């Protein structure tokens, strides 16, 4: 028996994040998260089709209140996520390095993610000023077009395990959508830890749901699901993209492709990503034509 005075550390169980709770996968399956050398560092849940369905149901349930919140309130919540992430920076640095990133890379992933959240926190109540219009129609009508969130958005997280994930999630949330995220399969640890950050940052349950598991297994199913309004795919694989587009035709799901090579670049952030996940609604309202035709008071 090894004689030691060193304290034995407690290992963390990485679970799924559905409806504001942390359940294990209903399937009881798992897969191994590996470090750079191929050693196992933790078990991750191998989410099933049923977990996926649960996540979509939660996202749909949360949409009404999330999308109708004041934009300003969403802005505060995104800012709060950044605050939470800043205070847990060390945890993410450690996890990213555990998964094989250098310290420098881990640091720029983490600080980049925090600043990106701040950037999108600012957009929550501003993109409307860019993408909405008052339309000078010829008839006597007040005609205006405003943005509305698409609804439930499925997100296939990009390879950049924290910054990439935050970079696709933030514009989705800023625009009032709810999300079902399929975490990066190989580097899934910080996706689960990000869920803990979201959980403690006033993000209502169900607004973000995070699954770890096999893309190959779950993606086709998500792409076909009729209660998902849009799917964000942020990788370059054209075969996957084309298969997603094919499978999405059932409910004309919007397949949004953001093939960003490097999420560190400043132009990897933009209000056009928010706009990609918005519908435009135009309203016509009559203007009464009484009093002083041509009056120029």
């Amino acid at each position: 028996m090894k004689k030691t005075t060193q304290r034995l550390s407690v290992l963390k169980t990485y679970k799924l994040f559905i409806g504001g709770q942390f359940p294990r996968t209903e399937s009881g399956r798992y897969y191994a998260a590996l470090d750079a050398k191929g050693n196992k560092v933790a078990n991750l849940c191998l989410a099933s089709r049923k977990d996926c369905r649960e996540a979509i149901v939660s996202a749909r349930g949360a949409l009404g209140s999330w999308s109708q919140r004041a934009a300003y309130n969403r802005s505060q919540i995104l800012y709060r996520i950044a605050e939470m992430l800043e205070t847990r920076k060390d945890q993410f640095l450690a996890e990213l390095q555990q998964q094989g990133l250098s310290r420098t890379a881990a640091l720029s992933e983490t600080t980049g993610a925090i600043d990106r959240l701040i950037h999108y926190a600012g957009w929550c109540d501003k993109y409307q000023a860019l993408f909405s219009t008052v339309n000078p129609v010829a008839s006597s009508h007040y005609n205006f077009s405003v943005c509305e969130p698409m609804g439930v958005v499925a997100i296939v997280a990009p390879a950049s395990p924290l910054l990439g994930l935050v970079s696709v999630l933030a514009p989705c949330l800023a625009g009032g959508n709810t999300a079902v995220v399929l975490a990066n399969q190989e580097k899934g640890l910080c996706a689960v830890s990000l869920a803990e950050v979201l959980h403690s940052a006033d993000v209502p349950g169900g607004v973000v749901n995070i699954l770890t598991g096999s893309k190959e297994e779950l993606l086709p199913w998500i792409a076909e699901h009729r209660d998902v309004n849009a799917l964000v795919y942020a990788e370059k694989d054209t075969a996957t993209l084309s298969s997603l587009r094919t499978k999405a035709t059932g409910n004309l799901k919007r397949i949004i492709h953001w093939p960003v090579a490097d999420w560190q670049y400043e132009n990897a952030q933009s209000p056009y990503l928010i706009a990609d996940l918005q519908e435009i609604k135009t309203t016509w309202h009559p203007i009464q034509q009484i009093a002083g035709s041509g009056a120029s008071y």
Partner: protein
Amino acid sequence: MATKSKQKIKPLRLAKAWSYSPAPESASIAQIKDQYELFINGKWQKPKRGAYLDSINPANEKKLYRAAIAESEDVEKAVSAARTAYDKYWKKMPAAERGKYIFRIARLMQEQARELSVMETLDGGKPIRESRDFDIPMACNHFFYYAGWADKLDYAFSNRKAKSLGVAAQITPWNFPLLMAAWKIAPALATGNTIVLKPAETTSLTTLKLASIIEEADLPAGVVNIITGAGPTGSALVRHGGINKIAFTGSTAVGKLIQQETAGTHKKLTLELGGKAANIIFSDAPIDQAVEGVVNGIFFNQGHVCCAGSRLYVQESIAAVFIQKLKDRMATLLVGDPMDKNTDIGAINSAAQLEKINYYIRLGKKEGALHYQSDALLPKKGFYCRPTLFTKVAQSSRLAQEEIFGPVLAILTFRTEDEVIEKANNTPYGLSAGVWTDKGSRIFNMSRRLKAGVVWANSYNLFDPASPFGGYKESGYGREGGWHGLLPYVTF
């Protein structure tokens, strides 16, 4: 309209039927110093000539603190600190980092919101309910909102590269001290300018507290400078050759002087001045809701509001009923200690302002308008005015033409839309207007024809950092709030 105007309506006399137990907010929440210095170049500095001005609590006329009077030497120091900070730090700072500083200010203000509310009420006399639920949260929100614009200016102005102006001189009024400071500072910082701000001499407290919050947020020294003092300080600031921009909120008379003063210079100028807003009630309006809106429109902040709905135009067919309901509602308004959470109408900001209001009340009576005042009990000490209205006011009456800036409502009637548009627009001012009707198409017709910077439909006195505010005509120019609020602080 089916309403019978001769029908006798039973008045609501709640104020008499019920007596409210006092619900005072605690004054000790606010840590007020005996004396405040000037905040220049990140340091609290004594004024060169060592002069100070007492500020009293208008609710009880007791001295609250004294603030430094900045003389031209101090103005010089502040402007040069702002210039150095602009060249050395602020101009060069990455926009996203600039934004993060402003977010910090917003957060620190939110954390100290209760203290700020108490200070605002003690210093200016407005009901604690208003400073707590309106002034302070709205001020925080302005910082939070404009913080987000800092790194997004390339999107705000397509095809143009927005550049900051340099040093902005800002002068704020006494009616919403902290909120007006927020309206001025937040967009100026977000667009990359540095600041010298002078609050009104009767209400400097929350702006000085804001200076210490800015200090706490660790902004580079000199980016924001707060100098206190009265008219001469403002005048020295406006005349200073080292400023690039002037933002002034206050009276139309002073606004005109500033325009004259800056006419031959390159200083960019925006003015948010007086108003004499028409609040227009059509016969199909939801009457009780409209009565509430009119009360809010004229009695909010004792009527010390540039966009106060001080001219009420009621359609003739409902005038009798409407005015009776309005009087009944006025009878329930509690006038008194601003620190009491039940108080609806607090203290008039200063003795001089109370005298101005009383002058107009005497004038109205002399001009032959019918005077009505609630019989609210007033405290013995302090400056107070009962909610007041005048009926049978002529369009040409000074009550209907001049800004009173107090709880005095002038009521006029109209028959047709043509008539009311003509009357409502017959004023040199053009800050805001209210329209009350059940008919949407009429709202848009009215809002198209009213010459005012803000039109509130079936509502009044609504504000949001995302929504631009500012006037037509002699109510000034430039907008504060929203995307438009960035424009006064940039050049292309």
